[in-house]
Every structure is written in structure tokens, then in C-alpha cells.
């Protein structure tokens, strides 16, 4: 037998052993009393999704039932996640699904499901209207989230208040990824609110890609052309953190402008408490995952799940956080790291 054949045999044997081991792990405890739930993360390598999964696990443990969870990694790819949803609902091996959609619009293609099992969605709805939280497709039993446009408008309202006595009030929009419906909806909401106030001038709109380094570069570039910025309005804390570094590099005190992010990371909550940022729209991913699992358990039991859970109401603190609102909940530190 030549070396190629030996290598092939070793690889096949190793693969078979690995698959057997994985299969054994998957099937552990899967008797008639065990509910099997697939958790479809937009990306299992992402802190936000990890926090959602943590909440799902907590709710599963607290339910008093035997629930076998399987986490699937969508790799921030809409097609990958669509395939995963189709696979888990066609095999007949699962009793329910919790999903954090990477693209809720595209994910609607999986409906109607091959096997009718309940689906709970977190953060984004599944269906054509990204701002409609009520189930849009047959199979989704609960949506835990808030309309992105509504949340973005709240952020923009904070800018309007800050800019009331400033004319012109120069604002930079630092938006995640303008090729996705979610961020286009947010950008449009920002422009709608800010556009109604003639003293506010949006001098630049740049993409931050939910990344500190990308945002640091983008804001550094913007500051070359606009040194008199009053506001940086971002939809993500990671982006606001990058903007903060860009401001510091340019010799501008971040606290001297209206810098705001969204997401509710621990760093963001600390920055708002310290006054470095003026605000941050708080998400509660662990609480959202927990709520989604609680509603899913109801549906798997044959009961009726709550169609919409307002994610702003479940975290125990005011979602649009400012230094003042956070003083009311001194123990709140945020539910995830960015």
C-alpha cells in the first residue's frame, strides 16, 4: 500500500471515528421525554449570539424539562443559515428552533417548514418587513425584538435634544453595513428624524461594519475633512468604541461631542456611566434568548406563545441609556462583551 492509500485510510478512519463520536454526543439523552431544540446563531463566534445562547440555556435549565440544545453556526452567511433551518426542520429530529436571523428577509424562504415545529426568532423578525414584529410567516410563534427603525429613531431623538441649541450641529452617521436591510432601515430612520431639524447637518455617512478597526479608520478619515463634528451616531457599540479612539487620536475629547452607540456591551455601559459617551441603545441578548426559549417551551408543550416580546422591556433598565438613566440601576453592567 503506498503512502497515499495509507493517508487516505487514516483520514477515513479518523473521520468515521469523529462522526461516530459526534453522533454519540448528539443522540445522548434523546429519548421520548427529551425535547430537541436547534439554536441557529447568526454566528456562534460572536459575543452577542453567545449571550443569546447563554440565555437560551438558562431558560432550558429552568424549564424543568429535559431539553437537548444544539448550537449551529450561521457564519454570518444568509445562505448557510437558510440551509441550516431547512435541514433541521426537514430531518424530523427537532422539536423547536430558536434563531438569531442573519437576514430575516431571506430566511423567510424556508417557510412553510417541511415539518411544522415552532420557531422563536430573536432580534430580527422573519419575513419581508423588518419593522413588523408580529409573525409574518407560518411557523414563527414568537419574535423577541424591537423594530429597528423605532430603536434608531429613539437614538436620533437623543441627538435632536443635544443639538437643540447648536446651529449648525454637524453629525456623522456611522452605520454597520449598508448592504443589509437592517442597517438601511436604521440609516433611513436616522435621516428621517434628523432631516426634520434644519440646524442638524449630516456631514458624512460611513460604514463601520460592526468592527472597531473599520470604524476607527472611517472616523479618522472623516475627521480629516470635518474637524467641527458635534455628533457621531452609531448603531453599534463596537463602532462607537472605534470612533472614540479616532477622536482621541485627533486630540478631541470624546466627551466633548455627542457620541452614542447601540448594543449594550459592558464597555459601552461603562463608557456611558463615565460620561465618555452620551448614550447607548441597550440590547439585552441574554434576556432575549431566555425569553425566546420560554415562549418556545410553551409552544412545544402545545400552548400558545406570546407572539411578540418587546426586547426593550425585559432587561431591567431603560433601553436608551444615558448617564442619568443608568444611575437608577447601579448594578447593571451589560449582558455581553462586544
Amino acid at each position, binding site marked *: 500500500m503506498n503512502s497515499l492509500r495509507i493517508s487516505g485510510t487514516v483520514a477515513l478512519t479518523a473521520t468515521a471515528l469523529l462522526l461516530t463520536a459526534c453522533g454519540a454526543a448528539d443522540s445522548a439523552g434523546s429519548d421520548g421525554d427529551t425535547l430537541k431544540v436547534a439554536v441557529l446563531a447568526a454566528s456562534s*463566534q460572536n459575543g452577542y449570539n453567545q449571550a443569546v445562547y447563554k440565555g437560551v440555556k438558562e431558560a432550558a435549565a429552568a424549564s424543568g424539562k429535559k431539553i437537548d440544545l444544539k448550537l449551529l453556526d450561521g457564519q454570518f452567511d444568509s445562505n448557510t443559515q437558510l440551509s441550516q433551518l431547512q435541514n433541521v426542520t426537514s430531518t424530523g429530529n427537532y422539536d423547536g428552533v430558536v434563531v438569531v436571523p442573519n437576514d430575516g428577509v431571506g430566511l423567510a424562504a424556508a417557510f412553510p417548514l417541511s415539518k411544522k415545529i415552532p420557531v422563536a426568532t430573536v432580534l430580527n423578525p422573519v419575513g419581508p418587513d423588518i419593522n413588523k414584529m408580529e409573525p409574518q410567516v407560518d411557523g414563527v410563534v414568537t419574535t423577541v425584538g424591537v423594530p429597528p427603525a423605532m430603536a434608531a429613531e429613539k437614538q436620533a431623538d437623543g441627538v435632536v435634544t443635544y443639538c437643540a441649541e447648536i446651529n449648525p450641529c454637524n453629525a456623522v452617521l456611522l452605520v454597520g453595513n449598508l448592504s443589509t436591510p437592517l442597517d438601511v432601515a436604521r440609516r433611513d430612520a436616522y435621516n428621517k428624524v434628523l432631516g426634520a431639524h434644519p440646524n442638524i447637518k449630516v456631514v458624512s455617512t*460611513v460604514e463601520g461594519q460592526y468592527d*472597531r478597526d473599520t470604524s476607527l479608520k472611517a472616523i479618522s478619515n472623516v475627521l480629516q475633512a470635518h474637524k467641527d463634528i458635534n455628533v457621531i451616531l452609531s448603531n453599534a457599540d463596537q463602532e462607537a*468604541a472605534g470612533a472614540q479612539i479616532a477622536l482621541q487620536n485627533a486630540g478631541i475629547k470624546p466627551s466633548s461631542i455627542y457620541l452614542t452607540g447601540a448594543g449594550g456591551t459592558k464597555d459601552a455601559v461603562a463608557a456611558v456611566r463615565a460620561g465618555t459617551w452620551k448614550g447607548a441603545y441597550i440590547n439585552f441578548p441574554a434576556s432575549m434568548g431566555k425569553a425566546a426559549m420560554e415562549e418556545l417551551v410553551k409552544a412545544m408543550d402545545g400552548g400558545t406563545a406570546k407572539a411578540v416580546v418587546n426586547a426593550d422591556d425585559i432587561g431591567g433598565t431603560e433601553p436608551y441609556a444615558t448617564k442619568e438613566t443608568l444611575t437608577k440601576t447601579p448594578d447593571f453592567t451589560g449582558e455581553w462583551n462586544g
Partner: protein
Amino acid sequence: MTATETSRETGAGAAVHGGTPIGPRVIAFARDYAALILLVAVFVTLSIISSSFLSFTNIMNILNQNAPLAIIAVAGTFVIVSGAFDLSTAAMYSVVSVVAASIATSTGSVWLALLAAPVLGLVMGALNGLAVTRLNVHSFLATLASSLVYKAVAVLVTGGSLITVTTSGFSELGRGKVAGIFFSVLILIAVFAVASLLLNGTVFGRHVFAVGGNPEAAHLSGVRVDRVKVIVFALSGLAVGIAGAIGVSRLASGQPQAGTGLELQAIAAVILGGSSIYGGIGAVWRSLVGVFLIALIGNGFDILNVNPQMKDLVTGVIILAAVALAAADRRRR
């Protein structure tokens, strides 16, 4: 200019040029230096249409922002000239990012954390080289597989979360300056100088060209092909480690998503600059031209407040144009 290019352009090429009219010679020059000419054209255009572009702070800003990518591309030139690819640079970057941040937060030692990055990068790069040579797997597949392994390590270390570093002095490498010049830019200049000397002025550099040009012939000529390949991958890992140390210091945080897309950006910059994707031809300066051509477009669009989607469109068209011009030049020859 590389040793290969030197002989190609001033040897046989000069004799041909001697009898060629000036017009075709200008066209041939334009094709060979397409990326450089485009870089100058974009630079001049931005200087004219934007009052903010041509300033010391903005130029330093561009250099500083892109120093990590440029360092990776400089080392990537060795890999591509040797006829291989390194698709694991982004994953290695994320590993060194989270490990450096972890060390800084757990030990409080800035230097230990920042020195760990290049050391770890060197080790991971050498492992890539060994995977390619010992397992006889094409570099494309070997580094694709190792990138999955390295990325998984980064996620396992952090659980997918960001590690914030508050250790005093940790940000100095990424944000500090001397005489108005960022440390990262000085490091880039040093890396560029050493890499240029290594590729163009040493026996090792000639061996890299030989391995990329024709590995069989190189082997028959006494070149230890496998050793050259391991070294170029180790250099790539070392460069990623240096770039990662700068990046993690600049952001004062390590995260498993750090460096996403860097591998393709670095390869695109090397190819855009004019190094051959087939190996055997290339130069370090060409890779820097590629990096900064893309960087200028990004900087210009942000300054001019143009729709971000237009930035991707224009960048794509320019990359296609530059590579097509270079391909036309090769066909002509």
C-alpha cells in the same frame, strides 16, 4: 524591482526597446507600472478635488491605518513570489490578537503581551510551512484548513467575546508617535527595508524567486525547496504577529473577529501591485503600491462623503483595470 524583473527589463528587453518607437515603449511602461500610475493618478486627483486630502496629518493617517495590512502584504510577497498562498493570515491575526490581550490582562506585562504576538505568529507560520511541505498539500488548501483551526482557537480562547485591555501603556505601540510619526509607520518602514533587502539582495531571495519560477529546476539546481517554503510561511506568520501586535495595541482589545478579510486584502494588494499570481515575479514595493492604492480610494471616499457602496464599485473597477493591464503586458511579452 526584483532580480527577475531586472534581467527581464534591462537585459533582453532593453535590446528590443532599443529598436522600438517611443509610443509602444510608453504603452509598455504604462502596462508594467499600471498600479503605480493609478496610485499617482488617484493621489493627484484627490489632492485637487479635496482640500483636506493633501496634508501631513491625513497622509500620516493613511499610513498609520494601513500599516498592519501593509506589513502582512510585504511578507505575503515572499509567499506569492514562491508560488504559494497564505489564506490563514486573518485567522493568525485573530489568534495573536486575543492571546496578546489575554496575556496583558492576566499578567499586566505590556512587553510580554506584545512580544508574544510575533513569536506566536512565527510559530503558526512555520506550522503552515511544515503542513505544506511535510504533508505535501497545496498551500491553498493547507492554509485554508489551518485558518479554520486557528480561528477556532481564537474563539475557544475568548468564547467569542472581546477582551478589553486596560493595562497602562498597552496602547502606546499602536497609537504612539515620535516627531509626529506613528510608531506603526516606522515599523512598516523598517519591515519594508529589511524585506526588500532580503528579497533582492540575498541568496535566500534568489532562491524564493527560483522556487516560484520553477520548483523542479530550483531543486535540481541545489535549492532546498522545502526549507525555502517553510521560511516564507514563517515570515508571513511573523509579519502577521507584528501587525497583530500593532492592531491589538491600537484598539486596546483583542477579539476573535479581528482581522476578518485581511487574507484576501493582502493577496489582492500583492497581485494588484503587479506581482505574479503564478509565482516567480514580484517585488515588495509593488505590494505597498497595491495596499496604498486601495487605501487612497477608501480615504478619498470617506473625505468626500460619497455613498459607501460607490467606494466598493470604484475599488473593484480599479483592481480589475490594474490587473487586466498587467495581464495584457504579460501576453504582449
